[in-house]
C-alpha cells in the first residue's frame, strides 16, 4: 500500500462578507498518491478552486476563513506552517499552475528571469547554471527555440506558450506535488491535447503527483487515475477513474456523465440535469443535491449523507446508494 503524498482532511472554508457567512467548502477530503493524477471535478462554483487555494494557503483572509481541517504534506499540517515556511513550500516542493497564466507570471520580467529567480530561491542555483537550467526547463515543456524565448516577456508569447512557461516555472524545483487548476480550459483543443500530453510525459518521468482540477470529464478520462466529484462544496463521490466511469453511483455523477455530449454517440437529445447549483448563501440542512434529485425523500431533505464505501475504494455520499433497484414507483428492477 502506497502512502499518500498529500492528504486533505475535512476542509471547511467560509467567506465572511458583510455580516453573512458563506460556507463554500464543507468537509472536503481526499488522498493524493505518489505518481498519481487525481481529478477534482464538478460544475463551476462548487468549490474546486477554493479547495486548491486553501491547500496552497493562497486564500486572502479576510474574507476567507479556513474554519477546520488539515492538509498533511511530508508529515506536517500545511495549515499550521508559518507564512515564511509556506512561501518556501510554494514553487519549491509544491508547484501550482492556473487557468490564467498571468496569475503566476509577472508581466515586467522576462520568462527566463522568473524561472531563474525561483531556482535561486528554492534550489540555490545561480548564474550560468541557473540560466542553462531555465532553458532546459523551457525545452522540456516544448517551447520552440527556448534559448531565444528565455529572454521574451510573457506578452510576446501566445496563450498556449504562456501556459507552457507557467508549467516550466511550476516544475522548476522538481515539486513532489503539482496542483493544476483548469490548466487547459482556456485553450483550443489542439493546444489542450499537447499540454495534457506534456503533463503526462513529465509525470511519467518525474513521478510528480498531480491534483488536476477540471470541469471536463473528457480530460479526466484521459489523464487521471482517481476522481473526486464535488457538488456545492462537498465531496459526493470518489474512487478510481475506471470504477467511476464504468459504475457511476451518485445521482449527480450519473447526471453529469449523461449530460456530456459525445463525439462517439449518435445524435439525439442530451440528458440534462434540471435546475442549477444552489448559491452558497442558501442554507441546506440535508443533501445539497436534493432539490435536483428525483430520488430525494424526507430523509434526504433533513439529514446530510456522508461518504461511505460501497465497493473497495469507491465512496458515495448518498442515502440511496447503491441506487440500482431503487425506484420511486416501487417497480421491480
Amino acid at each position, binding site marked *: 500500500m502506497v502512502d499518500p503524498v498529500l492528504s486533505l482532511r475535512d476542509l471547511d472554508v467560509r467567506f465572511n462578507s458583510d455580516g453573512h457567512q458563506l460556507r463554500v467548502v464543507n468537509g472536503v477530503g481526499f488522498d493524493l498518491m505518489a505518481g498519481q493524477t487525481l481529478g477534482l471535478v464538478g460544475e463551476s462554483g462548487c468549490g474546486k478552486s477554493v479547495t486548491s487555494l486553501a491547500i496552497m494557503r493562497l486564500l486572502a483572509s479576510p474574507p476567507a476563513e479556513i474554519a477546520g481541517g488539515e492538509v498533511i504534506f511530508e508529515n506536517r499540517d500545511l495549515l499550521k506552517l508559518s507564512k515564511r515556511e509556506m512561501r518556501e513550500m510554494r514553487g519549491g516542493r509544491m508547484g501550482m499552475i492556473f487557468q490564467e497564466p498571468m496569475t503566476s507570471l509577472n508581466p515586467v520580467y522576462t520568462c527566463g528571469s522568473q524561472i531563474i529567480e525561483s531556482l535561486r530561491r528554492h534550489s540555490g542555483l545561480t548564474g550560468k547554471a541557473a540560466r542553462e537550467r531555465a532553458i532546459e526547463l523551457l525545452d522540456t515543456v516544448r517551447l520552440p527555440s527556448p534559448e531565444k524565448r528565455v529572454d521574451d516577456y510573457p506578452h510576446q508569447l501566445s496563450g498556449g506558450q504562456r501556459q507552457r512557461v507557467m508549467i516550466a516555472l511550476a516544475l522548476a524545483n522538481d515539486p513532489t506535488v503539482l496542483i493544476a487548476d483548469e490548466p487547459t480550459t482556456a485553450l483550443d483543443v489542439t493546444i489542450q491535447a499537447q499540454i495534457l500530453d506534456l503533463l503526462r510525459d513529465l509525470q511519467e518521468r518525474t513521478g510528480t503527483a498531480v491534483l488536476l482540477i477540471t470541469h471536463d470529464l473528457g480530460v479526466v478520462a484521459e489523464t487521471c487515475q482517481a476522481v473526486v466529484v464535488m457538488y456545492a462544496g462537498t465531496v459526493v463521490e470518489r474512487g478510481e477513474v475506471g470504477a467511476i466511469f464504468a459504475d457511476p453511483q451518485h445521482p449527480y455523477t450519473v447526471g453529469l456523465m*449523461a*449530460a456530456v455530449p459525445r463525439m462517439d454517440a449518435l445524435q439525439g437529445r442530451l440528458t440534462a440535469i434540471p435546475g442549477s447549483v444552489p448559491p452558497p448563501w442558501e442554507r441546506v440542512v440535508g443533501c445539497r443535491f436534493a432539490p435536483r434529485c428525483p430520488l430525494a425523500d424526507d430523509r434526504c431533505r433533513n439529514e446530510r449523507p456522508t461518504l461511505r464505501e460501497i465497493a473497495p475504494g469507491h465512496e458515495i455520499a448518498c442515502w440511496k446508494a447503491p441506487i440500482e433497484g431503487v425506484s420511486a414507483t416501487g417497480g421491480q428492477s
Partner: protein
Amino acid sequence: MTALLRTEGLTKHFPVRRGTLRRQAGTVQAVTDVSFQLEANETLAIVGESGCGKSTLGRALLRLHEPSGGKVWLKDMDITALNRQGLREARKHMQIIFQDPFGSLNPRMTVRETLSEPLLLHGLATSATVRAEADRLIDLCGLARWHAERYPHEFSGGQRQRVGIARALATRPMLIVCDEPVSALDVSVQAQIVNLLQDLQRELGMAYVFISHDLAVVRHIARKVAVMYLGRIVEEATTEALFTAPRHPYTRMLIDSAPRPDPAALRHKASAKGGTPSALAMPSGCAFHPRCVLADDRCRAIRPELRQVGQSRVACHFAEAAISDNVVPIKADSPALMRRLAVLEQARAGQK
C-alpha cells in the same frame, strides 16, 4: 427550391493601423471567399480554432460587420445590397445570440422590457397584446413567468442564455446565428440549452448557423459542418461524413485532439502540432502546411481550392488520398450508466 441562406465569396478583411498617423500597416484576413448554403429548418455548424474567423463570419452574415466582398442572400433577398432601411427590416428575419448573453442584455431593463422592445419596434405586437406575447416567449424558453419582472444580474448563466434566446425569437426569425451559445455554461446547463435550441427548431422551423469549438456539441446539433482555417472553409460535409470519414488533415487533427469521456478509449499521442496561427501572417500555398503531416512542395506553393470530393467539399491537394474511415466509431453508453439513468428518469416521471 432556393436555399434559406446562401453566401458567395463572402470576405471580411480588417485593416491594421499603426503609428500616430494610423497608417495602414497590413490586413487581417479574417474571412476570405466563403460560400455555402443552408436550407430552412437546418443547422450548419462552423468549427475551428480560436481566431479562425468564426465570429467574424457570423457577424458578416447579418452585416454587423460590413463585408469587404461577396454576397449574402436570405431566400431571394440580397442582404449585401440593402440600404439601411431595408437592412433594419431584414434583421427581423435574422437574429444572433452570443456566448455571453450578459454583455448583450441591457442591465437596466427587466426581461419583460427586453422582450417587449423588439415586439413593438417591429410592429409584431400592440400595447394591448405585448404582455401576452412576451409571456408566450417566456414559456417557450423554459423561463418562469415571475422571471419577467427581474433584471439580468439576478439570473444564472443558463437563465440569461434563455433570455437571450427569447429575445432573438421575438421577431420570429427564419435564421439565428448562434455564436458559441453554450461555451460558457456548465455541462448540465449546456445540455438544457442545446435541447431547448433543438426543440425550438422543431417547433418553429428556424435555421441555425451554430458557431462552436466543441465538436461533440456540434455532432449533436448540426446536420452539416464547415471547418474553418485562417478565414477559409477547408472542409464542408454532412455531420455524419465529417466524423466518420474526415478528409482534410486539419479536420482529423481537430477530431483527434478532442478529449473523450471514456477511460477505456485508446489513448494516443496528440497528433496536433504547432500553435494556433495568426491571420496577420498568412503562410504561402496551403495555409495549413506548417502544421500538416502530409505537406509537400506543392502544398507550400499552391493554395488548394475548395472542391467537391465525394459527398464533401475539401480544400486539400491530397483530399482523395487522405481519407480515413470510421475515425470516431459510435459507442454505446456504459450499461451501468444507462441503468442508473433509467432509475432516475423513472423516479422523475413518478414525481410529475
